[in-house]
């Protein structure tokens, strides 16, 4: 996204006599020559002043002084300069004090995220040598790393996420603090851990990220059930950026026994639908080994599973890692060779038809209808009257004709 509307916000705040800068990830991206996805703004204006200046706003963390400003159809986070008081729960400060730009930067997590940019003067304000660390490709905590991680243990995973995604190294003192504090990660809620793990898996460089999670000791804390194998590394290397979250977790867990998988995804508080998808993916992966001997109707039913592309993609990753693509190639060609209406054609007959033929509703209905569908999927029946004759021929019992 272009910075123009964000610059207008800064200008408006300045016109009212406040200080205002771009801050955080967007400045890092600009230094790297990447177009930021969104812009955060830090200002000396207090929330109630920000709310008065812009017509469309929502308070999203009034206690932290954060206002969402809607400008030209885009949401921008405008946060008042602050320093945080003591953190009690390893996540949130007990209170905040509104301060100046420098103090605001010093409370932030990593130097690469601590740069300010003045879009009017086109200058970067760097209180923490963030530009040096960007050049050196280092993720370094601002100030004392132990203190930073003590305030919020999730920052340990965030350091790894930035390191992996940007291809940076975690600076030695910061890394040492992570190694020492890894066992404290349990103080963070499982929801927040899930979110961070999922981002490490889906934002690109998943294998690098998970290797760091493993090396830091966090893997042993968070996923003790997981075996960190060469096969898994190869698989994660094949996981595409932007993959669906539940699919990414399935790739991570596909070699883990099913009952353990269920424990992990339940612990990480995935939704029912996501848990189901992960388990179904892992359970059905071995089916690809039998794919050559499946009947056409069984194969078509397999292809009809919800989000079958994910099953196919998991098979691609798993088979590529195993250096044997025969089953996957066979499945993929079959899958591509059939149209949706060939895989899931409309039913030729229904229960109504069977009642009309004099059958008494019961378990036999399912048996007959499944059989008819089998014949249809195999290509031996394609018309309604063929199906009706087939029923008469094989199940007799009809009183009308």
């Amino acid at each position, binding site marked *: 996204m272009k910075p123009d509307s964000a610059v207008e916000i800064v200008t408006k705040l300045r016109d009212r006599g406040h200080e205002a800068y771009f801050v955080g990830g967007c400045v890092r991206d600009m230094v790297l020559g990447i177009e930021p*996805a969104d812009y955060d703004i830090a200002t000396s204006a207090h929330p109630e002043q920000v709310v008065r200046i812009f017509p*469309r706003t*929502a308070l*999203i963390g009034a206690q932290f002084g954060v206002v*969402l400003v*809607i400008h030209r*159809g*885009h*949401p921008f986070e405008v946060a008042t300069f602050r320093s945080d008081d003591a953190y009690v729960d390893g996540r949130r400060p007990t209170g905040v004090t509104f301060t100046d730009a420098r103090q605001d930067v010093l409370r932030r997590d990593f130097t690469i995220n601590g740069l300010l940019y003045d879009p009017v003067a086109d200058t970067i304000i760097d209180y923490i040598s963030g530009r040096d660390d960007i050049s050196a490709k280092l993720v370094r905590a601002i100030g004392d790393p132990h203190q930073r991680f003590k305030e919020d243990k999730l920052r340990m995973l965030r350091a790894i996420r930035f390191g992996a995604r940007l291809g940076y190294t975690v600076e030695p003192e910061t890394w040492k603090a992570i190694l020492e504090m890894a066992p404290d990660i349990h103080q963070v809620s499982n*929801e927040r851990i899930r*979110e961070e793990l999922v981002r490490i898996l889906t934002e690109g460089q998943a294998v690098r990220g998970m290797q760091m999670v493993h090396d830091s000791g966090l893997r042993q804390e968070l996923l003790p059930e997981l075996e960190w194998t060469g096969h898994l590394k190869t698989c994660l290397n094949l996981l595409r950026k932007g993959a669906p979250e539940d699919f990414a977790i399935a790739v991570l867990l596909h070699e883990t026994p099913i009952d353990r998988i269920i424990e992990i995804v339940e612990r990480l*508080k995935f*939704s029912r639908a996501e848990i189901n998808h992960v388990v179904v993916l892992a359970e059905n992966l071995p089916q690809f080994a039998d794919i050559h001997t499946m009947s056409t109707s069984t194969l078509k039913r397999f292809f009809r599973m919800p989000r079958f592309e994910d099953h196919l993609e998991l098979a691609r990753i798993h088979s590529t890692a195993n250096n044997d693509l025969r089953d996957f190639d066979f499945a993929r060609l079959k899958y591509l060779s059939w149209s949706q209406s060939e895989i899931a054609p409309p039913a030729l007959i229904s229960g109504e038809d069977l009642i009309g033929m004099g059958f008494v509703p019961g378990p036999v209905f399912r048996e007959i209808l499944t059989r008819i569908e089998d014949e249809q999927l195999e290509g031996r029946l394609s018309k309604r009257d063929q199906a009706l004759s087939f029923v008469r021929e094989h199940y007799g019992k009809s009183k009308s004709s």
Partner: protein
Amino acid sequence: MRMLVAVLLALNLNTATVRQLESLPGIGPSLAQKIVQFREKKGGFKRVEELLAVPGISEKRWKTLRELVCVKCE
């Protein structure tokens, strides 16, 4: 005596279909469509307040909606 308890689940803005969005008060087919377009353009909602950036969502409408939608739904 039997008690009927209706459980209202908040609708996930990031996964809801146009049809599901239409079930919200004050949201018709065209607004539902706009919400989905906004979501696709932005790559998803980061917080429910971003609904305010969707053209056609007034402050008043937003106030009735905010309790009915979520983005990181549990």
